[in-house]
């Protein structure tokens, strides 16, 4: 396996990425799915980062950009310091191996005509992960056990003979087979039953802890994001509302959008008051459809004139936290790219 030449090289990096769909000179239907987004996933310090947003926040666009499935309108996606559109064949293969993905739907990713073994054997062959059939079998069985599946219960079966949770864990096993450096998990537990979610999340946490794999956990569900991640990035309509260590963002949310999001979650707690708790006032700019400034201004009860006029910069409210909201304008302004990576001990240059 190729290792980065320099320890300073970041594994995956998005630099001021903007993605616009539609458009053209006379087309009014331009949708900015992601705006000026930057983040770094470091190879040397495996982390679990959660990217949380509702539908339309740009979270799936971000996953597709990271995987090279779509190109940014402006900005760059870098792998080991190189723009992924300029990778050589060899580098591309290395990229495909080191950056794995787990998709949302454990029903659609399988070919129903093949046994599940096929989905696991293919990468072993393609990337020559084993020297002999016996070695391949061993690797497979050990990997399945690694995610808590019994090989005798799973191998030799067709996808329809397995439950959604089992299928999703096989996908986790498949990602693990490659011993990648990073796994992009796009809503990996949203389609499986609650009683199995905790198990699959635990699997992902083990990949991070035992194999040093970085995880980018993309979800709409703040509760599972809180459960699994160390850092969290809250997206709203293609922009970062708030970023920071998960404990402080969830326990003391700053951005009015994050506060709304957390308050809206119904918890399995008979003492929570959920219905009728939505007592926020409307935004003073509720009727303004297209806001030039903060995208949340027309829903925000705290919105001020400046919010609708100019998009707020990122204010660094704590060592490891930034919020894009004028309520925190007394804090120093900071660059997003310095906040969407693990806090540094020594500055990373690339």
């Amino acid at each position, binding site marked *: 396996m190729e290792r980065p030449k320099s320890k300073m090289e970041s594994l995956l990096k998005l630099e001021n990425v903007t993605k616009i769909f539609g458009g053209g000179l006379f087309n009014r239907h331009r949708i900015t799915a992601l705006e000026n987004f930057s983040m770094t996933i470091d190879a040397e310090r495996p982390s679990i980062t959660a990217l949380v947003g509702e539908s339309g926040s740009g979270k799936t666009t971000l996953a597709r950009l990271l995987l090279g499935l779509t190109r940014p309108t402006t900005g760059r996606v870098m792998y080991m310091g190189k723009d992924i559109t300029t990778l050589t064949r060899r580098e591309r293969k290395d990229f495909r191996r080191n950056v794995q993905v787990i998709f949302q739907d454990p029903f659609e990713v399988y070919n129903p005509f093949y046994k599940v073994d096929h989905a696991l054997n293919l990468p072993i062959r393609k990337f020559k992960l084993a020297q002999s059939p016996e070695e391949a079998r061993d690797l497979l069985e050990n990997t399945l056990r690694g995610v808590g599946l019994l090989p005798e219960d799973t191998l030799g079966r067709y996808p329809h003979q397995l439950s959604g949770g089992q299928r999703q864990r096989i996908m986790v096993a498949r990602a693990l087979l490659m011993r990648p450096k990073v796994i992009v998990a796009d809503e990996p537990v949203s389609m499986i039953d609650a009683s199995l979610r905790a198990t699959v999340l635990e699997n992902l946490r083990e990949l991070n802890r035992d194999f040093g794999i970085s995880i980018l956990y993309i979800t709409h569900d703040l*509760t599972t994001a809180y459960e699994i991640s160390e850092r969290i990035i809250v997206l709203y309509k293609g922009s970062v509302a708030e970023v920071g260590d998960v404990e402080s963002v969830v326990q003391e949310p700053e951005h009015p959008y994050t506060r709304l999001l957390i308050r809206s979650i119904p918890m*399995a*707690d008979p003492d929570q008051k959920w219905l009728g708790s939505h007592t926020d006032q409307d935004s003073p700019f509720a009727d303004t459809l297209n806001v030039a400034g903060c995208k949340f201004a027309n829903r925000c009860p705290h919105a001020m004139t400046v919010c609708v006029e100019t998009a707020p910069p990122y204010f660094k409210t704590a060592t490891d936290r930034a919020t894009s909201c004028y309520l925190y304008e007394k804090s120093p302004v900071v660059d997003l790219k310095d906040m969407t990576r693990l806090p540094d001990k020594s500055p990373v240059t690339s």
Partner: protein
Amino acid sequence: MSEPVLTIKDLRVSYQTPKGKVRAVDGVSFSLMPSERFGLVGESGSGKTTTALALLRLIKPPGVIESGEVHLAGKNLLSLSEEQMRRVRLAELSMIPQGAMNSLNPVATVNNQIIDGLRDHGVNSPKHVLNERIADLLKRVGLEPSVADMYPHELSGGMKQRVTIAIAISMGPKVIVADEPTSALDVVIQMQVMETLIGLQEELGASLVMIGHDMGLMAQVVSRIGVMYAGKLVEVGTVRDILLSPLHPYTQLLVESLPSMESKLTRTRRPRGIPGITPSLLDLPAGCAFRPRCPKAIEQCSTITPPLEKVRADQWTACHLYGETEKQDGIPAKA
């Protein structure tokens, strides 16, 4: 004390499959008081949606309702003719289907879809009266009157779900069955739609049966919960009892698997998954269906299927662990 508005007795629904008969709902009983909100939770395949469909007699072949009784305001729905049943649907018992995205007719305006339901139930008011009624319905679910002339593709997910609520309440039913009414919506929108639904349900004095797997949502919306596992109710109790003092080992593990927002720095336990897998309905173990996954199983669990019995006031469970307790059989109802 008032009488239950809906009583389900020993309901059994089966599907004929090429590999044999599968009993998706196997002896489900519960009852519902006027204006009560009852939740039915369970994993996929546990029979919760089949139960909901059976209440409305909407089970389609190869599924059949084998036996049981569904009493709504004095009539046994399972013995009505198809025409009598059609009149009951919407007017007395209505349904908000799962995934509003796909349950509206894509080529009819909202107006026409609401009118369809009303006309089918003998509402023959002149056009302008109907239009007023529709504007009022839309207003009650928080939509502008102009939505009446729109097609489903012009509406957002939350708006579509509001339209299905407007249809469900259009005839003022006694019982509303809502099958995961907000599972496709973003959490902020879910809260708003749920507030609308509950507000209307209270205003109409209707009862609500809510189907779902989101225990958080259930905890916040209903007052009693029935937990289903492999086609059977394994526990029925108040939200507080189910969450804080569950009796059945499955409910206990389910509650332990729920994510929590309690600070990770101070809490005492982490959510953990339930070991093992849901059994196939084609190949259920003898005795209790949860036995192979149950950490507390005892000898008789592998031979005798435990019946659902009252163990505490307001709390019913189907588990041999409570064999020594003073028990009472019958239909789980609100005390």
